[in-house]
């Protein structure tokens, strides 16, 4: 949002309602395509709502504004969540969301930077944090106080380049760089195949100021983001413990929710479950 600094206080209820809207958009998108990375999207919805409607400064009508905060989605396959956030932020039309994953759609299943509002090509995991380091260095050269937020995932920490970037961020004292590490416990082959615990200790050992929170608790997210505003010479890591499929019980409980295909006949039930869980009027 166009402003020079993030607000001091957050309307947690309003942000939760935004997260609900993002989830509803995602279900619409996945329904249209019959499949998608819906589990991850639903899990990260709260963090994206907090970023796009509270923490980030940006101008939806001037995406190249040099003083904007950058958000880099390193896990390109979470695009379903980014499209929902960009639509809700007024950067892409909400009506376009139904084209998710369709031929010729800009709303591809794994992000490309040709879609407005996308700051990097995600998808080849391990690329995001290093690019965030570079952007933070560039902003420093320009004496800008704009910040860089990078989303990455627990599985992505298995890519060595993630740690190359982590080392360099603390070396260069990039205190305007915030890593949001989505620990949802799943990767392509199922439950996390290589144990990454203790995650927060690893980031601390690499020189990052680290917090670890329930990534589906809006109060906790807003608190962690506020804590990460300090320009104290250290990059910030926020370890988000998220539930894949959050908000839709039958996706939450699925064992194969890395990539989700849903039979046509199941959709009514899924959407009813979601609407029941969010309650009327949201």
């Amino acid at each position, binding site marked *: 949002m166009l402003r020079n600094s993030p607000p001091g206080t957050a309307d947690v209820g309003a942000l939760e309602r935004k997260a609900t809207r993002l989830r509803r958009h995602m279900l619409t998108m996945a329904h249209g395509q019959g499949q998608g990375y819906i589990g991850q999207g639903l899990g990260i919805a709260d963090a994206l709502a907090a970023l796009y409607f509270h923490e980030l400064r940006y101008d939806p009508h001037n995406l190249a504004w*040099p003083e904007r905060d*950058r958000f880099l989605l390193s896990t390109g396959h979470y695009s379903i969540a980014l499209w929902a956030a960009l639509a809700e932020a007024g950067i892409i039309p909400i009506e376009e969301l139904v084209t998710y994953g369709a031929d010729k759609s800009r709303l591809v299943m794994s992000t490309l*930077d040709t879609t407005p509002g996308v*700051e*990097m*090509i995600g*998808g*080849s995991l*391990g*690329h995001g*944090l*290093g*690019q*965030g*380091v*570079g*952007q*933070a*260095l*560039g*902003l420093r*050269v*320009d004496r800008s106080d704009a910040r860089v937020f990078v989303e990455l995932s627990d599985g992505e920490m298995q890519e*060595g*380049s993630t740690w*190359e*970037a982590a*080392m*360099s961020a603390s*070396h*260069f004292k990039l205190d305007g760089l915030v890593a949001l590490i989505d620990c949802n416990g799943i990767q392509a082959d199922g439950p996390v195949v290589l144990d990454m615990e203790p995650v927060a200790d690893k980031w601390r050992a690499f020189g990052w100021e680290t917090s670890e929170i329930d990534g589906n608790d809006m109060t906790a997210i807003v608190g962690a983001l506020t804590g990460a505003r300090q320009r104290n010479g250290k990059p910030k890591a926020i370890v988000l413990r998220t539930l894949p499929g959050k908000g839709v019980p039958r996706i939450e409980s699925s064992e194969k929710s890395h990539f989700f295909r849903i039979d046509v006949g199941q959709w009514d039930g899924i959407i009813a479950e979601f609407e029941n869980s969010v309650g009327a009027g949201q």
Partner: protein
Amino acid sequence: MEAGRTPAMGQDEDVGDGRQSVEAPFGRALARLGQSHPDIVGLTADLGKYTDILPFRDAFPDRFFNVGMAEQNLVAVAAGLARTGKVPFATTYGVFATRRAYDFVAIALAHSSLDVKIVAGLPGLTTGYGGTHQAIEDLALMRMIPGLTIIDPCDATEIEAATGAIAEHRGPVYMRLLRGNVPVVFEAGYRFEIGRARQLREGSDVGIISTGFMTERALDAAEALRKQGISVGVLHVPTIKPFDAEAVAEFSTGFNHIVTAENHVVVGGLASLVVETLFDASIAKKVTRIGLPDRYIECGAVPTLQAKYGLTTEAVIATIAALN
């Protein structure tokens, strides 16, 4: 070799025979460009000393970043800097920029056409450190990346000119680096243009199409062969991509026999490009390929290895003399 410079980390100092040389032409040129181009930033992955970029660091310490031994991160960080409007020059050895950081060059740079210039030391057979350090297949690897400009300069004059040209060029570039005392083959008026080959010598019997430092050998060989009554033309092709197919085709029509010469394996690089070009243009010529074999090269002294694998003036002379 100048005083105080140690032949470590694969260092070599093959400065050619009796030619004048320039010390660190790339780093000096970049430091000069830094004055007029405030957007240029420099990066290296713990090889600043060995890729001649330190003159830039010393001139612009706030615009220089050493990311340590991490070539994937080198390229990723450079991509991020480019996204903020900078023009990063990132140095490492060719083997690391290609084999280790390939996915980052392809996706983080080239897919988005970012303005990053990778300057890669130890091209081909310029070190005796063996397969770990000899970038003998880098041109072939990088050729496969869409939109990447690839340059293999011949000498100090061309390195200086090309450094300026790639700074102005919009888009990602991979440039091979000759470092240390680099011979001067071309005169000061030599014009380098991205994508353009230059005919440096007329001839009628054999046409050499060469790139990188093999053009120096080609010119010397042509002069020696003239004394033996063999007329040799030389076309220098410093830009591997985009390839000047038109100039190659036109040059080739004037000879019965074409010889390609490159400091690189003979698969996937200049020789392949020339053969593809001639085939596409329906020009039937005999083509003899001078370059490295499709195998890993052993360790040893650089002059010994270059002689063994045919990358010397003498070898070019012998190859061409044997054709006639």
